[in-house]
Every structure is written in C-alpha cells, then in structure tokens.
C-alpha cells in the first residue's frame, strides 16, 4: 500500500513540467556544466586532446573516486555521513591483492569474495547504526578504523600481485579487453568496432550506476532512504521501513566502496593499506557528493550526481598538468575553484521568495 502511494505521486508529477525537474536538479546541472568546462579546456589544450589514450587514462584515474563518491552518497541522502568509505575501499583493495590471482575460476571467486567483503562491511556499518543507535558519523569513524586495522593486518606492507592480464584488460579500452581474452574474434569483429575504443572503467561505471543504483532508488527501500533524509519523523509516521532503509543504504555504500577498492587493486596490481590515502578518499568523496548537488542535510541528490561531482574534482587537477600554475599555488587554486563550485549550489538562496523554503 505504501509502495503504491509513493510511486503514483512522483509519476504524476513527472509528466508535469520539465522546468520543475530542471530546477530540482540545478546543482547537478551546474556540476555537469563545470565538468564540461574543465574537461573541455583540458582536452583543447592537451597535445593529444580528445584522443582514446587520454580518455582511457582519465577513466582509470576517475573510477575509484567516482565509486567511493557513490558510496558516500547513499548515507548522505539518509542524512548521515559515512567516514569509513575510504577505509572499506582500502580494505577490499588489500583483500583483492590476496584473492584476485590464479586460474580464471579463482579470479572470479576472488572478485566475488571482494565484493561480498565490501558489502558485508557496509552491512556491519548499518547494523551498528540501526541496532546500536549510534550516529552514523561516529559509528563509521570507529568501523573505519577497524577496516584500516584489518587492511594493515592483510597487508602490513604494500605488495601482492594481481593477475597481469586482468590488470591490462580492465584498465584499457574494450578492444584491448576483447583482445586479451580472445572475445569477439580478438576484438576484430566488425560490429564491435564502433564501441572498441570505449575505456573499460567507463563501461563499468555506467553498469554499476544503471544496474545497481538506478533500480535501487526506485524500490520502496530506496525511496524510503530519501524519505528518512527528508523527514525521519514523517517517514516513521507513514509506516515506512526505516530500519531496512538504513541497513540497505550502508550495505550499498559498502558495495560501492568495495567495487572502488577492487578496481584500485586491479589498476595498481597490488594492495596497499595506505592510511593517508584512505583518508583522502573519504574527504574527497564528501566533496564530490556536495559538488554533485546532494545536500549534506539529506533527502535530495543521487549517486549519479556524485559521479559528476567526482569528475569535476578530478578535472580541476587535470588542468594543472596543462597550464603553468606554480606548484605551490595549486592547492590554493583547487580550493578556490571548489569553493566556487559548491557556492553555485547556494545560489538558489538568492531566488527564494520565502526564507522558510531554505530550510528544505
């Protein structure tokens, strides 16, 4: 019953006005605009701009932070923060450096085990938050430390060796992937040519977004995540499954972070329990979420928007490789651009007719 009530209302509105939807997604549109600007300028001035190599290189660089940003988004929509995403990413990274090697079957099992580990850790986060009734930010601060501890236990020092073919295939174009594994006539099949140049990480990113995130946000549980972030009391009074939504949100975050960690392991062929790096990923994920237009207060936004946020974050630093910005000024420039980017989201404050609107 609740399901029906929730799903009919937005469907009616969806047919309504495009203008409304654009206004609701102003933050995301701003982020897309910024990305097009930064990435376009970068490619224009790059000696090999708009080429396959540059796209592959950028896709590899962006994938992990994009996934960690997606991971961060779900708890943020819930109105919380997950400080363990970078740590879970690192944990799965170290786990993968032990498991993703050997025969094809072992590799497949290893990949499944890594994804399961990330998901399980996310579920654990959810349990601590739901059953322990602890604020997400504190709960995940603690579980994040546990994840790093486990990662250090698995990899006291950087090392391990992932399957070399897998590393090469996953970090190149679809054509190289097909060639490595002898699919589609070694990547030479005529029908395959139009898509052979697409980077594998980009395909994976789209797959995760389309096959995991988008179906999830349409389910009752997914919409409850939004409802909880918007007004937990009202969601409770409406009889929505709040505990289930919270568990699902953190579990999904664990899964996304796990995919990110797995890819980082594949990309670098090794595992590394790098504590500063885990911290950097967590912080950057929050930045990406905000740039993507998701409110830290919860209730709005989405994981795809955060991917765009992560793209903006990375595209800013891409430009440092092209333009002559003094090295010690780069963090300052990056900070200023970021501040400007997140300020775009606050512009709506100038247009509201009633200040009360600002509170939601």
């Amino acid at each position: 019953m609740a399901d029906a009530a929730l799903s009919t209302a937005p469907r009616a509105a969806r047919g309504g006005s495009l203008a409304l939807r654009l206004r609701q997604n102003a933050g995301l549109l701003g982020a897309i605009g910024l990305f097009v600007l930064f990435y376009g300028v970068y490619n224009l001035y790059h000696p090999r701009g708009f080429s396959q190599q540059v796209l592959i290189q950028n896709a590899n660089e962006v994938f992990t932070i994009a996934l960690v940003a997606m991971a961060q988004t779900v708890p943020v929509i819930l109105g919380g923060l997950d400080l363990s995403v970078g740590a879970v990413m690192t944990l799965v990274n170290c786990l993968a450096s032990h498991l993703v090697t050997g025969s094809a079957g072992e590799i497949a099992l290893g990949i499944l085990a890594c994804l399961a580990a990330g998901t399980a850790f996310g579920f654990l986060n959810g349990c601590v938050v739901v059953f322990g009734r602890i604020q997400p930010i504190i709960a995940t601060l603690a579980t994040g430390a546990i994840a790093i501890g486990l990662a250090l236990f698995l990899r006291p020092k950087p090392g391990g060796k992932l399957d070399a073919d897998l590393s090469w295939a996953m970090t190149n174009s679809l054509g190289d992937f097909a060639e490595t594994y002898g699919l589609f006539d070694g990547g030479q099949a005529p029908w395959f040519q139009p898509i052979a140049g697409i980077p594998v990480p980009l395909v994976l990113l789209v797959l995760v977004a389309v096959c995991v995130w988008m179906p999830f946000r349409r389910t009752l549980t997914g919409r409850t995540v939004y409802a909880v972030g918007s007004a937990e009391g009202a969601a409770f009074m409406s009889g929505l499954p709040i505990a289930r939504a919270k568990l699902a949100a953190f579990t999904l975050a664990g899964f996304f972070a796990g995919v990110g960690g797995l890819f980082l392991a594949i990309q670098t062929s090794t595992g590394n329990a790098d504590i500063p790096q885990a911290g950097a990923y967590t912080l950057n994920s929050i930045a990406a979420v905000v740039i993507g237009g998701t409110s830290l207060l919860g209730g709005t936004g989405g994981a795809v928007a955060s991917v765009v946020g992560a793209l903006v974050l990375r595209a800013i630093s891409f430009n440092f490789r092209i333009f002559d910005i003094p090295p010690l000024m780069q963090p300052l420039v990056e900070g200023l651009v970021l501040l400007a980017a997140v300020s775009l989201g606050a512009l709506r404050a100038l247009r509201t007719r009633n200040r009360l609107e600002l509170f939601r």
Partner: protein
Amino acid sequence: MMRSLRLPAAVVAGLLLSTAAAVAAPKTVSGPGPDPQCFKPWKADTKYMQWPKKDGPYRVAIVNGFVGNTWRIQMIQTAKAYAEQPGMKDRIKELKVVSTGTDVAAQLGAMEDFINQGYDAIVTIAVAPDGFDRVIRLADRNNVVVVPFDNVLDTDKVMQVNEDQLEIGRISARHILKELGSKREGKILEVRGLPGNSVDRDRHLGFREVMEKEAPKFQIIEIVGNWDDGTSQKATADALAVHGRFDAVFTQGGSTGTVRAMMDAKHPFVPMAGEAENGYRKLIAEHAKDGLKGLSYGQSAGLVAISMKAALSALEGNPMPQLISVPIPVEDYTTLKAGVNYWPDLTDNFFAANAFPACGVNISAPEIMAKDAKNVQ
C-alpha cells in the same frame, strides 16, 4: 575443445608480442656510465640501462605526491632553481611540477598524462612502492624516462635515485651504540616516519639489524612521528610520560620536535640520531656539551636535482645505473659548523643538507629558502 584451447594460446602469443614491444625501450647494457662520482651504482652488480638517444632540449615533468611539509616544498623549489641554472637551462625546454596528494590513482593518472603529452622524462616521488607496472609499460613504449627518487619503487625496470635508507638506519644505530659506550641494556626510543612507506620501512630495518646484532638487550620503544615536528613532539611527549627515561633516541624525522619534547619533559639529554632539519642541528650545537650527542643525516631535498640530471643523461643516450646511490650527507656534534652545515640565524624548518658537490649540484639550502618567492613563481 580445440577452439577453447586455441583461443587462450592466441591470447598468450599476443601478450608475449606486446610485452616484447614494451620492453624494447631501455636496453640492459654493461657499465660503466658517465660521471661515476655522481651516478654511483647501488651495488657492484647493479645493471645499467640505456635509452635511445633523443635530441634536446627536453620536456621534464615532476610528479610529486604528498605536499605540505617543508621537505617537499624545499624539493620543489630546488627543482625549479636547478632547472634555471646555467648548463641546465638550455637543456630543459619545459619543466612542469604537479603534486597529486597521497592518492595513487591520481599519481598514476598524472604520469600517464605526461607520457601522453609527449614529455621526455618524468621525475617522481612514488606514493606507494608498488603499483606502477602499467605506467612503466607505457613509458617504455613511448621512450619516456621515468625516474622515481626518495620513495622509490620495488622494481628494477626503471632508473631510480636514492640514498641507501637501510644504511641510514645502520649509521644511526652505530652512532648511538658508539655514544653509549659500554652500556648495552636499557630503553631506546625509536620515532618512526610515515607508515606504509618504503623509506620508513628500510630505515627501521637497518636500525634494527644493527641493534639486534650488537645490543639485543636494549628494549626499543617504537612510536610514529610521521616525519613531522608536531606529531613527533606529541608522540615523544606521550612516550616519555609512559616510559620515564630513555638511554638514547633514534628519530626518523620531525627531529626538532623530538628534542623539544624531551626538553619540555626535563628529560636529560642523551645520544641521538635524526634528520637534517636546521632546528635539530641548532639544538645539537647548543646542547652537545650537556649530553645531546647528536648525529644528523640528511635525506636531501637536493635529490630531485640529481634525479633530473640523471634523466637528462639517460635521454642523451648514456648508459645509466638502474639504481643510483647518492652519498648520504652525515654530520655529528663534532662536525657541525655554523654557516656551513647549519644556520643559527635561519628558521628551524628547512633541511640543512642540500648540496652535492660530486654532482655539480651546489644550491645551498639557505639560498633556496631565501629566494623562495622568486622560484615558486
């Protein structure tokens, strides 16, 4: 069945071909190379590498990881200043410096970007000792010389420049044992660097190697100082509160902080080994007579200059040692001289060892710190 067998075989053959193409770039040759005083091979059996000769002037990129401590800033400034020196200026067409933070994906991306941009050499401080296979493969395909220094990689496929970190640990242990005289029992404080880092690991292993052999009865208390004055001062203060008294201290970095924590806790001065911060050297000079019998080794920020020099030499087609050992600049309380290897009038926060006469790298530390504004621009 046949088909399923043939496919993997074709894949393997294809991979072998691509690997053959990939390793074509630097040839393994026999030494010696040019300038053996400066480009000293790590060991007698260190192999030599040779890249196809390219015509200059060259485009050089420096891909730094973490930025935000004095050492890294001094390193960047040294690189900028060195590229402007006569003899280098006309050989370097363009020098680009980026810092990617402690994120390996960003660092890999930046290196790959410079390869795609057609740079000739990439000098880098790796954020992790592993994980650069892909970039090395691409660099080899494009005849780009990659030179990791300071935090080097666990591979012999690239030319690398460093000081022997194991030896730094050993020198520190030997100095402490020498200054302790016949005392072979008690507590020693070891302040470690950034966890997970190869420099931290090797210094620690070298130190422990000597200590375990020569004086196994010492109890060594290990704390983490992150090579940072503030962190090391706090960690040391905590350790002093818990353990009371130490007979000697080995600090990997943030040495000034370590000493200050001991002074604050009214801990008597004891034999020490530490980094080359100017502040630490100032404290040694001042308190050596009270018992601060310090040794100060320098992992010099000037390593970047030697790495750049080595990269250019490789681009000019010279055979180069795969692993270049730069002599460790060491001073102790008996050899410190004001205005020569420490500067009483200057700030604590720079690394006093910066010049390498054997390599023609003669940018002294105060020179760098004095004209910083100009060099950064």
